[in-house]
């Protein structure tokens, strides 16, 4: 972007992403070591993932299957045959000083992902998605890699399966990026191949450039040549969808400010500093790196032609949301809430099947998610207590306690004190009063309050409310006010 084109309202933002996600598999991509986080450094290692001389990689088909499932979910082409290449570069976290990755025959090509942002549906193209091995991790003691006294290397992470997902430059704003990444995580979690709670499970590099708004075609695409000509910055070290939004919004403003002041935007790599909320130039003049890619002869081509048909994927969030609306008559908002994670959606369907869809929707979407949200808790925090929550819904469904007590006392105590619903009901004496007791209380209230009864018969509206209050007092609040009202009227009219 030249300094002359300095009217920033005439500029369009163009963003493309390279997203690295760790695939959830039991073992690493090229050896049998566990992918579970280990307490001790270098505990989950073997000759293969340590890159010991003579050790050879063998593909973990589970990782390839996970990648094919991702390919199906993003509607990508799966090739007849997929191959692995070596990407050669020296770095202390790389056991072999090359990374096994994919180059000209990636496992997924030409996909797309649809998502919502600001009430609009958007679709972003995915150029390719390929498999590769994660490097190890470094701990620099006393500074950065260039200034540290020494650096420790931990190969526990080395060989964790990674999928690099490369989008087309289809994003026009930072909030689109956030919405896309959130949706991507949701889809990957639905597929059971991703765990967003895991440290470092999502890593994003983003390319951002400003181009002349006139260069954006009617269909929203931007010509390759225009992008080549524009100076772009690559922003690294983004590790969440919220971080991506902040980093790219910052970068967009920084570039606009530069152009407004007549300064050229430098083509460079910048580092997102999450704690300071700024992107920083990495200084080093980024020359075009030459990775000297060539075929990894230790891994024969893998025939995956029929894997697409062979491997099933679960119903994805969009489809499930639509089905929930149609099948259970839910509003779009409720259906969206209930399909936000697979865990919630599965739980909702369990409860809906056992009791009643409306009751299930209220209890899962409103009560449970509301109380969790209020406590800054996630559904995953109570995933092992779904049985108890279902029991609570059962107590309401079978009229054993009132909805009000279930919500205001039982659920809150369950979340705050960790007790089970039956215990809480018992301790607080919330068991709904039996019909006989209510009936006795109604009769007693009428007998004890002749004035109110007279007022009722004179047509005074307030009288019935007074009597309901009396009955509720006698039953310790455990009777259903609607039922009491009904019983009183029957008694008084009878």
């Amino acid at each position, binding site marked *: 972007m030249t300094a002359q084109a300095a009217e920033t309202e005439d500029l369009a933002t163009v963003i493309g992403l390279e997203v690295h996600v760790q695939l959830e598999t039991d073992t690493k991509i090229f050896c049998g070591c566990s992918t579970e986080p280990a307490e001790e450094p270098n505990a989950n290692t073997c*000759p293969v993932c*340590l*890159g*010991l*001389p*003579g*050790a*050879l*990689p*063998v*593909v973990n088909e589970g990782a390839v299957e996970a990648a094919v499932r991702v390919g199906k979910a993003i509607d990508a082409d799966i090739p007849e045959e997929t191959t692995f290449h*070596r990407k*050669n570069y*020296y770095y*202390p976290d790389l*056991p*072999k*000083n*090359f990374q096994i990755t994919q180059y000209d025959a990636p496992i997924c090509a030409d996909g797309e992902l649809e998502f919502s942002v600001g009430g609009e549906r958007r679709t972003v193209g995915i150029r390719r998605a390929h498999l590769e091995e994660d490097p190890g991790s470094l701990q620099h003691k006393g500074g950065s*890699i*260039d200034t540290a006294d*020494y*650096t420790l*290397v931990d190969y526990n992470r080395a060989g964790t399966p990674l999928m690099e997902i490369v989008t087309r430059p289809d994003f026009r704003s930072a909030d689109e990026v956030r919405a896309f990444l959130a949706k991507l995580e949701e889809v990957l979690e639905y597929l059971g191949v991703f765990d967003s709670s895991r440290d470092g499970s999502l890593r994003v590099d983003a390319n951002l450039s400003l181009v002349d708004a006139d260069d954006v075609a009617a269909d929203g695409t931007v010509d390759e040549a225009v992008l080549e000509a524009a100076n772009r910055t690559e922003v690294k070290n983004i590790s969440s969808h919220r971080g991506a939004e902040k980093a790219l919004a910052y970068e967009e403003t920084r570039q606009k400010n530069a152009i407004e002041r007549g300064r050229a935007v430098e083509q460079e790599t910048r580092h997102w500093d999450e704690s300071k909320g700024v992107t920083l130039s990495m200084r080093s003049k980024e020359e*075009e790196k*030459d990775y*000297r890619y*060539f*075929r990894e*002869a*230790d*891994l*024969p081509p893998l025939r995956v032609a029929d894997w697409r048909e062979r491997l099933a994927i679960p119903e994805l969030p969009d489809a499930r949301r639509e089905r929930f609306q149609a099948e259970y008559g839910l509003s779009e908002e409720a259906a969206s809430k209930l399909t936000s994670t697979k865990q919630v959606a599965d739980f909702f369907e369990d409860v809906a099947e056992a009791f009643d869809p409306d009751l299930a929707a209220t209890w899962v979407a409103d009560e449970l998610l509301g109380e969790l949200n209020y406590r800054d808790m996630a559904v995953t925090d109570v995933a092992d207590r779904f049985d108890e929550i279902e029991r609570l819904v059962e107590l309401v469904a079978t009229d054993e306690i009132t909805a009000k007590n279930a919500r205001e006392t039982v659920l809150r105590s369950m979340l705050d004190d960790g007790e089970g619903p039956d215990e809480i009901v018992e301790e607080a004496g919330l068991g709904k009063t039996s019909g006989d007791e209510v009936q006795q209380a109604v009769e007693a209230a009428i007998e004890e309050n002749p004035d109110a009864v007279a007022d009722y018969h004179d047509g005074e509206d307030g009288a019935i409310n007074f009597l309901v209050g009396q009955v509720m007092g006698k039953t310790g609040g455990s009777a259903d006010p609607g039922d009491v009202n009904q019983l009183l009227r029957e008694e008084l009219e009878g």
Partner: protein
Amino acid sequence: MSTEYNGYVTAERVEGAEDGPLAGRTVAVKDNISTEGVRTTCGSAMLADYVPPYDATVVERLKAAGATIPGKTNMDEFGMGTTTETSAFGAVENPVAPGHVPGGSSGGSAAVVAAGDADLALGSDTGGSIRCPAAFCGVVGIKPTYGLVSRYGLVAYANSLEQIGPIAPTVEEAAELLEVIAGPDERDATTRDAREEGSDYEYAAAADGDIAGMEVGIPTELLDGADEAVVETFWDAIDDLEARGVTTHEVELPSVEHAVEAYYVIAMSEASSNLARFDGVRYGVSGGFDGNWNETFARAREEGFGDEVKRRVLLGTYALSAGYHDKYYQKAQDARAWIQADFDEALAEADVLASPTMPVPPMELGESLDDPLTMYLADANTTPVNLANLPAISVPAGETPEGLPVGLQFVGPAFGEHAVIRAGSALA
């Protein structure tokens, strides 16, 4: 046990199982094949102190078969040489031709067998590294079909080309050792089961010398430019075979004139990547802690590698670089495919192809070290076989008038080990 010809880098004995087909026999192991608890140097200062925590698959199989490993044999550094003079542990002298090289890179393995210091040995063959020293030391060496023997534990020089194989005094003994080490391995994804390729593992039974009716093709290109005494010895051996019922015909392999170039481009390219891990951090010479990590890596490599390794790593890095990749690496791959097609065609008309293993008799020690190009050209007859992934055997064919051993090479179709073993067994 040490040898005055410097055959072993480490003479540490490892006993195998009590019983098995190799019980009571010693099998020396080339020092680029990993042995748990016994240092595995690859003939390099970089790995002088490297002790693998695991056994190569072939070593597991040797132990299970009852073999005793008498030691780890000397070799050209990382397999990069044709004379076993580039070892950081000193050159090996040819025990049957004093003053001469034993051939390489598995020179130590061939020498200990020729000298009788081991019954058998394992070598590895990337571009002739088993067949060349077998020929120079007057013993038998087999380079198996790519994928027949597991490479798990073989420190890679050029992983798309190399195979581990046996060296022995006779073809039958070499075949017996091959039976022990051959067969698929789930830790090496490039291994294949010979039985699924229309073959079997009964190699020793094929060493019956019964060659009557065999059709032998002779690629004229592999005789062009060969030493006169070598050519004469070769034809004498062919005459002998014909007298025993073999028929021969000349075949053309026009592509092989590009084999040496293609081989070196591919081998060096792969080597530049395979040897990248030796950076002084986990093994090898540490570059010390002055300067940044990149400078430290560079210094470790400068100190740890010998000249021939540096030459090949640098040339290989160059051949893979942007702008040169298509001109060198891709062209070499194209040549490789052409060579494979030429061999397929020639082997459609012949059971095996025959040529001198080496175009020259063993060089004098020190003679070729300063002339890498001449040394590379000595690989003209062996490298095409690796490029074509085929099996080959080198058997003693006689001697030059000066008494230097000459080897004869038979090349067979993929998983056609039986054919080269049968043909070879007529001579040794």
